């Protein structure tokens, strides 16, 4: 180890990272860069752009549901086919091109090398390749909106035979393009994931032991492993589905001995761990934010870690709770009900740990903290309603109703929207070297969280009234078109429009602060983790002197110390 660190010091002083890269052209600095921070920002901005597309789609189809048959301002009439394409691509985009790139790729790229105290990912060129494949996948998906026949409309779960045969889905080009885009996206995240895992395993700062790694780094690494272990069968399934679509094989075609339910198994064997793939980084963000803004040590670091391992393992044995009405054996339904109820235990434990961390802390209600607290409250509702869907008895009634839809939005919106905003407000000073505006941050917070509840609580009520999910005009079903139910739809839609409008203050705050915000110091929140010891924003190579680690990451308000924080790299 001794000669390793001396060679590090040597190569660092030799190369002169900081000066060397000033001269690079715009293209090599921002487009073809191998710097982990630039690649992280590329993922972040691509994800934000895709979120705008996904947000516009939800606006169009919610307006159609609230005011069926009327032209939607800015979109026009929503036909049945267009409605299907909108909901399908809204789901696909929000999960694969917003949640995944922002939570795993953007944060993982930006934070892992900074938080473990090194200068870059271990494979910077593979990292760049990962983003380029991701960008290509986004372009393929966007291109599919404009091909003859229109984009794919067979739901984000793409169940065959609807997804496999053009005579059913009527999108001979859109459907295969959708599959290709999703498969490319998987390849991008496999490459990125290998980088995250190997970097964290091998490139940690001197002295950083297993229990000194910040929780969010653990979470991103475990999420990458979960993704890697679960996506393989679906990769195979995607190849089979693509062949069914384009080469007329019959892997999933029941007419010729294929089994459509097999796809459901492949999809959900990935699809359910995927929920935890995006949840874990969000949990990591919340751990970082609440410890800093409660000025308190994380209540039980090892418990969080072990519950995460438990969640990861159990998540591979719950998938068939999506298929209780797909004709699976009722005895199987019992098994999967039990495993599904089991997985709520470690997740609940994690939430309790966070609440215990807050207890007795000196809480500062800064914008990131507000979002982190909102995550705990809102995700709790999502988790508790999940119990009803994991139990096969209630799920058979709720299956494919708006109850399911409201449930998973109560999990995914806290994960991909609320926790991500906590992360953006928290790490913005490190990313861009400037502070975001607190007042507009709080306006954005209340304008996001209150309307969010007004969207989905009515949808829970609609679901319990038996409203099926995949109907584009409820006027065709007189018992679902009553004024009471229609009013709930209108409330949800109005709340959605308000929530979307409140993203404008965020975007303005984001871009104005990036150039005109108050200059941030290196450690504006007085946090312990290593990224705050680098300058804001960190230069190429990150650290002037590579930090050494002397203690765990959450030593806040340690008795007997003058300061209420104790950075990981400070010797005494």
């Amino acid at each position, binding site marked *: 180890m001794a000669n*390793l660190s001396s*060679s*590090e010091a040597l*190569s*660092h002083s030799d*190369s002169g990272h900081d000066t*060397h*890269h000033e001269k*690079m052209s715009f293209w*090599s600095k921002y487009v*073809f*860069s*191998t*710097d982990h921070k630039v690649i992280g920002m590329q993922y972040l901005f691509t994800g934000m752009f895709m979120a705008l597309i996904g947000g516009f789609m939800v606006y169009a189809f919610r307006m159609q549901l609230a005011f069926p048959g009327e032209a939607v301002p800015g979109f026009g009439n929503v036909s049945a086919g267009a409605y299907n394409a909108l909901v399908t691509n809204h789901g696909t985009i929000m999960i694969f091109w917003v949640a995944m790139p922002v939570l795993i790729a953007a944060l993982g790229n930006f934070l892992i*090398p900074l938080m473990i105290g*090194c*200068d*870059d*990912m*271990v*494979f*910077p060129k593979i990292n760049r390749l990962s983003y380029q494949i991701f960008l290509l996948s986004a372009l393929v998906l966007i291109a599919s909106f404009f091909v003859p026949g229109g984009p794919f409309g067979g739901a984000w779960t793409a169940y065959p035979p609807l997804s496999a045969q053009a005579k059913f889905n009527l999108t001979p080009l859109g459907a295969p393009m959708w599959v290709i885009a999703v498969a490319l996206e998987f390849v991008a995240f*496999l490459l990125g*994931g*290998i980088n995250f*895992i*190997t*970097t964290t*395993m*091998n*490139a*940690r700062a001197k002295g*950083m032991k297993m229990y000194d790694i910040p929780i969010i780094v653990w979470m991103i690494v475990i999420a990458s492993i979960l993704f*890697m*272990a*679960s*996506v*393989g*069968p*679906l*990769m*195979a*399934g995607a*190849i*089979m589905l693509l*062949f069914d679509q384009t*080469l*007329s*094989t*019959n*892997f999933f075609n029941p007419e*010729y*001995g*294929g*089994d459509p339910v*097999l796809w459901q198994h*492949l999809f959900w*064997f990935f699809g359910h761990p995927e929920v935890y793939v995006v949840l874990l980084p969000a949990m990591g963000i919340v751990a970082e934010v609440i410890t800093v803004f409660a000025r308190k040590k994380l209540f039980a670091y090892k418990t969080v870690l072990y519950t995460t391992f438990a969640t990861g393992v159990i998540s591979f044995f719950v998938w068939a709770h999506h298929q209780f009405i797909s004709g699976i054996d009722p005895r199987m339904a019992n098994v999967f009900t039990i495993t599904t109820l089991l997985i709520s235990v470690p997740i609940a434990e994690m939430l309790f740990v966070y609440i215990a961390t807050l207890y007795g802390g000196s809480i500062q209600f800064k914008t990131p903290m507000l979002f982190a607290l909102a995550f705990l409250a809102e995700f709790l509702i999502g988790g508790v309603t999940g119990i009803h869907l994991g139990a096969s008895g209630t799920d058979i009634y709720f299956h494919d109703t708006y109850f399911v839809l409201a449930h998973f939005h109560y999990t995914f919106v806290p994960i991909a929207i609320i926790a991500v905003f906590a992360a953006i407000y928290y790490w913005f000073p490190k990313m861009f070297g400037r502070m975001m505006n607190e007042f507009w941050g709080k306006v954005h917070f209340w304008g996001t969280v209150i309307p969010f509840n007004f969207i989905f609580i009515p949808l829970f009520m609609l679901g319990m009234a038996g409203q099926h999910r995949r109907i584009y005009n409820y006027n065709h079903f007189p018992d679902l078109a009553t004024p009471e139910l229609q009013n709930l739809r209108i409330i949800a839609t109005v709340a959605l429009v308000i929530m979307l409008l409140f993203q404008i203050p965020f975007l303005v705050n984001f871009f104005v602060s990036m150039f005109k915000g108050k200059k941030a110091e290196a450690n504006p929140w007085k946090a312990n983790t290593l990224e705050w010891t680098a300058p804001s924003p960190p230069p*190429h190579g990150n650290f002037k002197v*590579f930090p050494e680690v002397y203690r765990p990451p959450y030593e806040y308000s340690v008795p007997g110390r003058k300061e209420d924080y104790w950075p990981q790299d400070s010797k005494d």
Partner: protein
Amino acid sequence: MSSQVPIATGRSSTGIPTGKLAVWWVIASEIVIFGGLIACYLLYRFRFDHWSGFAGKTDTLAGAFNTLVLLTSSLFVVLAHQAAQRKDTKDAFKYLWLTIGGGFIFLIVKAYEYTSKILHGYTFTTDNFWSFYYTATGLHGFHVVAGMVIMAIISFDVRKGNNLHRVENIGIYWHFVDLVWIFLFPLLYIAK
């Protein structure tokens, strides 16, 4: 364009070189891809008795010969690794190309098999058995080709005395490709 290797790449908190670690993770992700495909095949195979008739139509002799070829090529890649360890770049280069040669023979036999199957009327869409046969062996063949290309690139680097540790990494990958075939051969050729 920055061509510097970051300091991170040279670190090794686990004691395992980063490149080797990454190869193992690549293999982990590949195992589940092939595992998913093979699991699908098995689920169908147990359900459809008539597939054993199709399995009888695959060329077991050609498959056995190819198994031998791949196993021999795996021996060569081990010899290449040994040569690289004693810094014998000439020998390492030679054995890497013998391995690539094994890959070539494998692909030629594979091409012969495909041709004769198609001429007998067993095409990609004849039955799901044949769809699986072509998909699984095709995906495996694609991995063989990828391994050969990477090995060729590494071999020229090795001849100049650079990056000798990569011989071991590509060797691990080649063994994996070999191992996948060890699963495919009995499933598609032997079991009737």
